[in-house]
């Protein structure tokens, strides 16, 4: 059977702007992926725990409030604590360029800023999965 890509789409933090996250969820679905959508106000603990239970290949998070420097690295830290090293983690939102190197160093594989095309995100995911058959 064809290997399905499973993606957890989450909004960490408190901001309620989920237009982007929902558009991404839909386009990943339309690209044939299984999207587990967890909704607003997710703590890093909830995100990591859900991603383990759901055995996802990818975690995609979006933050527009500016709390990314705190929340994204926290997710990476918790994944590490659980010994999870084969999940691709990507982030998006209103994120200044100068923050991106720090987020990448923390393990966020890619950061998609406003204006990113969903097709680019889909391509990135398909080409950078950490698990392969």
């Amino acid at each position: 059977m064809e290997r399905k890509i499973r993606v957890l789409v989450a909004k960490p933090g408190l901001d309620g702007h989920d237009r982007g996250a929902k558009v991404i969820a839909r386009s990943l679905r339309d690209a044939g992926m299984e999207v587990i959508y967890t909704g607003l106000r997710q703590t890093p603990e909830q995100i990591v725990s859900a991603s383990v239970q759901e055995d996802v290949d990818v975690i995609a998070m979006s933050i527009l409030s500016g709390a990314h420097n705190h929340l994204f690295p926290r997710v990476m830290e918790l994944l590490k604590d659980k010994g999870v090293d084969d999940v691709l983690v990507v982030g998006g939102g209103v994120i200044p360029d100068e923050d991106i190197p720090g987020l990448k160093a923390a393990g966020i594989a890619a950061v998609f800023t406003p204006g990113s095309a969903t097709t680019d995100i889909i391509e990135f995911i398909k080409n950078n999965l950490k698990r392969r058959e």
Partner: protein
Amino acid sequence: MDDSAVSAERVRSGDIRATARLISMIEREEPSRLAVLKALHAYGGGAHVVGITGPPGAGKSTLTDKLVAELRGRGRRVAVLAVDPSSPFTGGAILGDRIRMQRHATDEGVYIRSLATRGHLGGLSRSASEAVRVLDAAGYDDVIIETVGVGQSEVDIVRIADTVVLVSVPGLGDDIQAIKAGVMEIGDVFCVNKADKDGAERVVREIRAMLETAVLNGAATRFSALYTARAALAPASTDPATIESARDSLRDSLRGGAMEQGAFHHIAAQAPGHPNLEIPPVVCTVAETGQGIVELVNEIKTHEAALAATGFLRSRREANLAWELGRGAAERVLSALERDERKETMSELARAVLDKRIDYYDALDTLEKALTRY
């Protein structure tokens, strides 16, 4: 983590990553899963498998969330399988049931897993029954399967669950018709959710009326099977006149409000001395506020106890397993027919039928003989 790192020991020891990966292997129909599943076979059997089904918009996810909370409060470890349909066009899926249950995400006594139907005929696939067995072996006390009540999935859930909760809501209008058309026959416990909304009373009345009619007419339903088992334990009179009078007294007690316990909870009503004449419970809930959840869990657990006490749990599981074996065998036969050498045999037979050398039924007999030699 590699698939090869998944073992029965890790699943049994409560390793969530191993359990989660094993379920992925099941979904992918990975042949390597079989060794682990076989090793897990010796364990489990103790979990109470509860199916939650009903039409879209009935509030099943919120209800499941509240059931999980209540069961956790009773000290039980709970696993949830939330099934959503895959898109027939792209094969993708948005699995959104989890949103309602995310508050349990960090509770180590709760495991939640979203499953897409992935185009399996029958919606709830073999994957789900295999996943249930894994979670059972992993030591969860309750395994809840939530399915959207569309298409075949509702009918499938009766093959997996020990107890099926059929959820209805007011305001869906025509869905009552669908329930009348036979879905009613699959419930063990009946739940009317969003009971604070206009029309809830009417839904309860209609469900009650259907249940009463079924029981009083002696129709075969999912719940009546249990009552028959119960009757076998405490044989009641078979004298038609006695049964008729028992029916009358049940009818009378129903009129007298035998099931009412507050406006919210309609307990099961039994004919005196005739345990096989019982109307199953109808529980009203407002999942959003938690109203009625304790009562619903009580009814689910009462049902489990009745299954166990009558020995019907075993016979229900036996019947389900026999059905599953049948399906499994049919799948194997189908895949055997797909093998190349068989394809040639089939083409050969097809030509023979086309040329009128043999008839269709002789061709089938030939095929069956050829297959059963293996």
